[in-house]
């Protein structure tokens, strides 16, 4: 039986991060992953991440994955792919399916970072081909370059549902509706807003009645539900679709830990069956640690930090570090993790409806119900300022841990301050040069450059644009409001693409002056 100091199950964000921390201390570490490519979910994440610099904010997920893989290989981490861990036994013996055989390994310590699987919901016709998980849609699009369907209905308005809906639009699919049984959108408002402004309708307090079709999905019926989630008669709506995407949460894949004899709990706040563990990732079985979604559903940024902490803790357990050093090293990571677990969407606020921001400003009810901020609501947020000349407009209205815009502006036009979850403020007196760095830096695509006196009787609006093909300068079309409805004629004045913008293109369109604070998207005629 081959022996390793440390065996890690899963080469996703948390597993690889743990491996890096352990390998840096000279520990002999192997990572097994059942997939043919390492990186777990990171390589499906083509959007820019939230957070601060230390959380790798405004970097796209797959690039974070590339960096992590590079770091792991530089540290001498051994990653074995197409290697499925099928058993975890007493004395930390691990059985792995590799090729046509089952191999036995023994680790002095084990970190289980096996991630999560997608939940399903049942409705009439849910087993028809064409009903797929949102994660499956993401795998098809972003890993294999396959369009999941032509006309798609998304069920679930959490960040996964919102982000994948946007990616489906980028892929050229027609997203006919975004549906959720909950009365309010579960994910970030900025993610919802960038989907809504392209014209996708949101149906909150609605769920699927039936997926129609004989041998595949050909349509779907939804209906409104009351506060007890019972269908309200007479509220049915029908859509012609070929695909239904389900984004209804994740469950930890914790079976290996249960098998290893770890004390488990069923914790709905963490997504289901999870091992009982401390904040260092120690389970009830000595030498068996956990990190990432398997210990409670969060997201990739926190999984990477949890992985680092588990790696350091395992190093201490193995005697490669004393408790003083590990304590010091863990401290910085704990602070970073704490930073991510702040704001309205923090784990502690899960399921709570928050009415006002930390600044005491009322949250937009339209944003929570329809995915966009109404024209008469937008003025109350501190990122909105009417000014002469070109200036940034930050339509960021919820307290989320994210601040790249503040550093992006070379002229100090945007201020968030010490508290990473504060809303960005448009600074009085600072002079915008119209460079667009803020627009491209905003992971939520919520910053626009507006010039109300751009020319003779017209205004210009510069918006983030992540669709191909890019419109040409001079192209005419419609300006769409935040609600995705056409509000005016528009003409493309400028299309900017730069390495520093990292694939977010800046589209400047000409609109009537009175539409400067209303037009937020462009579609060519």
């Amino acid at each position, binding site marked *: 039986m081959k022996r390793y100091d440390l065996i890690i199950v899963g080469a996703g964000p948390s597993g690889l991060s743990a491996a890096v921390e352990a390998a840096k201390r000279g520990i002999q570490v192997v990572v097994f992953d059942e997939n043919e490519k390492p990186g777990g979910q990171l390589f499906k994440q083509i959007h820019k991440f939230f957070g601060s610099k230390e959380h790798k904010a405004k970097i796209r997920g797959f690039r974070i994955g590339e960096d992590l893989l590079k770091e792991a290989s530089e540290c001498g981490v051994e990653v074995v792919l197409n290697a499925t861990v099928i*058993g975890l036994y007493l004395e930390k013996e691990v059985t792995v399916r590799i090729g046509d055989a*089952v*191999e*036995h390994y023994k680790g002095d310590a084990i970190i289980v970072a096996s991630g999560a699987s997608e939940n399903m919901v*049942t409705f009439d016709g849910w*087993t028809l081909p064409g009903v797929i998980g949102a994660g499956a849609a993401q795998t098809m699009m972003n890993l294999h370059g396959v369009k999941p369907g032509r006309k798609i209905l998304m069920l679930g308005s959490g960040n996964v549902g919102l982000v994948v809906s946007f990616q489906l639009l980028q892929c050229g699919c027609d997203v006919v509706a975004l549906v959720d049984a909950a009365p309010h959108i579960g994910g970030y408002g900025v993610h919802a807003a960038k989907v809504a402004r392209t014209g996708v309708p949101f149906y909150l307090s609605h769920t699927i009645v039936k997926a129609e079709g004989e041998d595949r999905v050909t349509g779907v019926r939804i209906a409104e539900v009351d506060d007890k989630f019972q269908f309200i008669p007479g509220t049915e709506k029908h859509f012609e679709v070929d695909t239904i995407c389900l984004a209804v949460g994740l469950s930890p*894949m914790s079976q290996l830990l249960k098998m290893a004899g770890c004390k488990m709990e*069923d*914790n709905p706040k963490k997504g289901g069956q999870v091992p009982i563990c401390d904040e260092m990732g120690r389970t009830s079985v000595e030498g068996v640690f956990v990190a990432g979604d398997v210990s409670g559903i969060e997201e990739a940024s926190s999984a990477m930090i949890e992985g680092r902490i588990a790696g350091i803790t395992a190093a201490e357990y193995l005697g490669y570090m004393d408790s003083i050093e590990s304590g010091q090293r863990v401290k910085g990571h704990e602070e970073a993790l704490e930073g991510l677990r702040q704001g309205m969407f923090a784990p502690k606020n899960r399921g709570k409806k928050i009415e006002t921001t930390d600044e005491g400003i009322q949250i937009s009810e339209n944003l929570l119900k329809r995915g966009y901020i109404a024209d008469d609501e937008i003025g109350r947020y501190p990122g909105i300022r009417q000014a002469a000349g070109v200036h940034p407009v930050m339509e960021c209205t919820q307290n989320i841990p994210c601040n790249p815009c503040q550093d992006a502006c070379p002229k100090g036009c945007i201020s968030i301050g010490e508290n990473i979850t504060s809303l960005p403020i448009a600074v009085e007196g600072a002079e915008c040069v119209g460079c667009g760095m803020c627009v491209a830096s905003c992971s939520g695509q919520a910053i626009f450059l507006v010039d109300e006196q751009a020319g003779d009787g017209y205004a210009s609006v510069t918006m983030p644009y992540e669709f191909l093909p890019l419109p040409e300068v001079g192209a005419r079309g419609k300006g769409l409001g935040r609600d995705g409805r056409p509000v005016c004629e528009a003409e493309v004045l400028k299309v900017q693409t730069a390495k520093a913008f990292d694939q977010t293109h800046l589209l400047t369109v000409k609109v009537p002056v009175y539409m400067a604070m209303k037009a937020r998207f462009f579609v060519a005629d």
Partner: protein
Amino acid sequence: MCKINDRSRNIGQYIPAPDDDMIICRCEEVTKGEIRRAVHAGLYTITEIRRYLRAGMGLCQGQTCAKLVKGIVAKELGVSPAELEPAGSRAPMRPIEMEVFGNERAQGR
């Protein structure tokens, strides 16, 4: 847990529902009605349901339906799904061909 294992507890009659023929476990084609009837026949734990109906015993080993089955059983029993002990976890954790499972290599690579 005691509350769940108390077989003398009256959980009421099985009442047919319109969605009873909906498939819950796709691998083994077990319907919602079969699961509900099994609970009323006295099978109160997930392990019993699995052994009796094979729900969650197929190719995906309950990866998709475990949570759904748990929800249905809990509802019939009138308890929270969190109170139900999930099925046992044992190797192999993933579907595997017998010829591979039988081909053990003790030496590692």
